[in-house]
């Protein structure tokens, strides 16, 4: 007789039963369509700056000049002097076209290269949300590590979520793959019969945001869906 003795905290549900893992591979070369799924931290730009130390020796004639940020790694941001009072800079703005491009941003407060002025800077990624502009006509930029709207990953996951509840997604080191964790309960795709793969492939090619005003074309027509198993373990 088979005696089925139930364990205490371990049950069949926790034994890889409650979640399912799927690797979506766009089957394209790098960079793949999932490159801009979140605002990258290695492409940061200055968005806003406020003076925290006005320095000394500024004159009205300095208005319109720019202060260059010191520190960080990458192309330095520059700040246009807007107002001067009692020899100090009192307000600046990020100079148009000189937002910088940093792989490592300088920590606030950020020193500048002229007469001791110091500013605090807000940063964003360089990913542009297509089709949207600020009231002043400037582009929308996505925050660092924030989800990029209308990204290829988002479009693909919208398809997947038609018949599944997505719990986690993992952005892998490459930009052509994404790992998706779904609840097992209510999962309606028949992955073995490639219905999920085919539904995603039907998206075809489409334009997704990148760090330009025109975006970039993503192609998911050859995307593959592979189920992974938690009992293969998570990589270190």
């Amino acid at each position, binding site marked *: 007789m088979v005696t089925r003795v139930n364990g205490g905290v371990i049950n069949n549900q926790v034994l890889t039963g409650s979640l399912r893992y799927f690797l979506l591979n766009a089957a394209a070369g790098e960079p793949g369509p999932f490159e801009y799924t979140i605002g990258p931290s290695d492409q940061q730009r200055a968005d806003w700056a406020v003076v925290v130390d006005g320095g000394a020796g500024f004159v009205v004639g300095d208005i319109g000049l720019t202060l260059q940020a010191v520190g960080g790694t990458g192309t330095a941001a520059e700040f246009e002097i807007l107002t001067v009072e009692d020899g100090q800079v009192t307000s600046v703005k990020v100079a148009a076209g000189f937002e910088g491009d940093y792989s490592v941003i300088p920590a606030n407060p950020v020193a500048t290269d002229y007469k001791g002025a110091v500013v605090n800077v807000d940063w964003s990624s360089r990913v542009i949300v297509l089709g949207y502009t600020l009231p002043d006509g400037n582009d929308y930029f996505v925050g660092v*590590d924030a989800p990029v709207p209308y990204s290829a990953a988002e479009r693909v996951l919208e398809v997947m979520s038609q018949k599944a509840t997505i719990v986690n997604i993992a952005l892998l080191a490459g930009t052509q793959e994404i790992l998706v964790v779904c609840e097992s309960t209510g999962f309606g795709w028949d992955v073995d019969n490639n219905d999920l793969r085919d539904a995603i492939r039907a998206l075809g090619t489409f334009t997704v945001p990148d760090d330009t005003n025109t975006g970039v074309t993503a192609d998911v027509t050859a995307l593959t869906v592979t189920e992974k198993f938690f009992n293969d373990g998570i990589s270190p």
Partner: protein
Amino acid sequence: MVVKVRGGIITDQMLAGNLRYLEIDEGAAGFSFALGGYPSDNFTAPADNYEEQAASATIDNAGSGYAVGDVVTVSGGTLASGGSASTFTVAAVDSGGGVTRVTLLNAGDYQISPDNPVPTTTGGGGTNCVLNVSYTGVIAVLGTNRFVAARQPVPNSAVEQVCEVITQKATIVQVALMPLAEGASFQVAVANTGFGWNVADDDLRDAIRALGTITVPYLTSAGDTVDLSAVTVTERFLYNGLNN
């Protein structure tokens, strides 16, 4: 100004924020006996550690030409080292010699038991008897004369005792018995919400180590001992991907 435009269905929570993954490593093979029989098709344990035996069978196809007392032998599966196939004795037949009931004669010994329904061969004159066989593992439940069914959780296993500690301050969502180092380690996925351990400060590791040396079910009724006093706990991250 930083403009954070929200994505559609991708949320910060979804970006690896809902779950945390921990790997518990005992260093030896203390986590081997967490399931009866083979834990999964992906598990590659020593053949003599995980074995399955037939426990009973029902008739899937009666066949014809059988007589009471005939012995049928189950086909397929992967035998354990030195193991034999399961056999059943025909206990009752219908008017055409179709088998209506069998009894276990030899439980056999499998590394991987055959998938149901299982064809049989016969030592008598009948043909086409097909069975649905139930298998059990060979791990003994301590303090009883029972064995744990194939792929069922082993009560009071080392994995279970460790998980009981983890659940004091966490909700376990999944447990992965891994094909790594023959039962030296396993992984758990826990809900991030309400996770109360400070893994970086080793409080979970120390709580598990405090279990010391424990007795766990084994192939024999006396069980085996597992030393948890040197266990390590390592946080893993989903965004590194799953092995395969």
